[in-house]
């Protein structure tokens, strides 16, 4: 059964077709066309204000788009639909925020287990067990009963990743997951992301961590002024960037 399912499934998981978005007269995304294959890790990089965060937020419809379409396994995320369908669709796309956005009134294990219980209707004890396993996986089993306010930034972000994984999403989006962290905590978060990637998770990451991009990404999307200017495997992108804007961006990074 699994083989036939694999055959019928299209290769691409996420497809963006001619996506445009503007705030009033100001265009933030211009005719974005791109695809992410199953199991692929894509890193979006580009200068600040280029539209990276907006782009990734449109993929689970935290931001609306003006035209075009974004599909997940063929299902249009931005189609008119009942909110119930949209919520179900969103729960299949994990999202990790720059500022963690953990729920400060809930303990760490509750943060991870509340969504399976309240959204999917998983039994509380089952969700609790699973949450503990996920926390163990991100190296925070001993912090299960702690509250987010007692954790370091790196620990909070790892809890946020566990919280997203609790919904068993086939796709994970990361919006600058290490940008709000002290430098010595960046490594622990990237390590968790690397292990996810090695397990075949489909991932889209907005990040300024070029080391991570080089080691983990299958492809880099370079974006500036709301347009994807270049997509290339990391070794090609970092050695021989084609677009002049990308060359300038990489030159600036080296200073």
């Amino acid at each position: 059964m699994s083989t036939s399912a694999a055959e019928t499934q299209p290769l691409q998981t996420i497809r963006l077709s001619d996506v445009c978005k503007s705030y009033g007269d100001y265009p933030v995304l211009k005719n974005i066309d791109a695809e992410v294959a199953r199991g692929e890790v894509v890193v979006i990089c580009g200068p600040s204000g280029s539209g990276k965060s907006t782009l990734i937020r449109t993929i689970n419809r935290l931001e609306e788009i003006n035209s075009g379409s974004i599909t997940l396994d063929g299902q249009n995320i931005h189609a008119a639909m009942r909110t119930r369908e949209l919520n179900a669709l969103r729960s299949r796309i994990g999202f990790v925020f720059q500022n963690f956005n953990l729920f400060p009134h809930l303990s760490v294990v509750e943060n991870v287990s509340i969504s399976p219980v309240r959204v999917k209707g998983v039994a509380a004890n089952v969700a609790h067990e699973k949450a503990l396993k996920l926390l163990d996986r991100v190296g925070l089993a001993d912090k299960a009963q702690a509250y987010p306010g007692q954790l370091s930034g790196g620990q909070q972000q790892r809890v946020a990743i566990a919280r997203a994984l609790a919904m068993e999403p086939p796709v994970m989006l990361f919006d600058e997951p290490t940008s709000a962290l002290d430098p010595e905590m960046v490594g622990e978060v990237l390590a968790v992301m690397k292990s996810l990637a090695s397990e075949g998770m489909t991932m889209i990451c907005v990040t300024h961590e070029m080391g991570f991009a080089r080691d983990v990404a299958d492809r880099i999307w370079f974006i500036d002024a709301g347009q994807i200017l270049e997509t290339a495997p990391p070794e090609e992108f970092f050695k021989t960037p084609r677009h002049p804007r990308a060359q300038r961006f990489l030159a600036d990074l080296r200073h």
Partner: protein
Amino acid sequence: MIHDVIAIIQDYWLLLLIGQYPNGPLGGLANTLILSALSIALAFPVSILLALARLSKWRLLRWPVTALVYITRGVPLLMLILWSYFLVPLWTGADVPSFVTMLTTLVVYQGAFLSEVVRAGIVALGSGQMDAARALGHSSLGAMRFIILPQALYNMIPSIISTFVSTIKDTTLGYVINVPDLTFAASQVNNQLLTQPFQVFFILAVVYYAICWSLTHVANLVERRITRRRAGLSGGAAPVLVSAKIVSEQL
């Protein structure tokens, strides 16, 4: 003076406590407490509904509620009480007991005030919490119930308690439409004694102070307990806990 006060309490304690009951309607302190408790118990959920309506994306819900809140906040409570007292029977032809009139008016009035407190609490939380809840697949109402409101209401406890306390104090205005509460009983006592208004109303002031102070005190205890739980501590000094709470909210 103290002797007078003690004498008044000895002579009239039953009237001050339960009014004319069982020979007449329940009144006095008992009625004040019932009216206060019902007003608060009803105004609180009403205020949450009003706040959610004002934050709704549907204009049909948002605009009428916004108008209601603005009008209610811009009119003195006494005026609202007199309106509902005289106009509701005129319009509906129904004979509404003054207690019900007073309760309804207080619920609408304090509900409108409280809704602004609740709304401020929700808005002050920022969009990150809602984004996170939506990204995990929670519905708007589910996110409100399990993620947003528990935080917003907790953060607003001091303001919410102030409104509760002012609700209790506003029950005294029932006096003008003959709601037999503690103020009404005290003024009956004053009419009988005629010469000791200061002593009588001193008793009244002390009783109201005790009620309001108790409520504030209980609320502080509750707030401290929640703070302590969220800081993950079973004991410890309050100042430390407060700083822990601020840290968690900045993140």
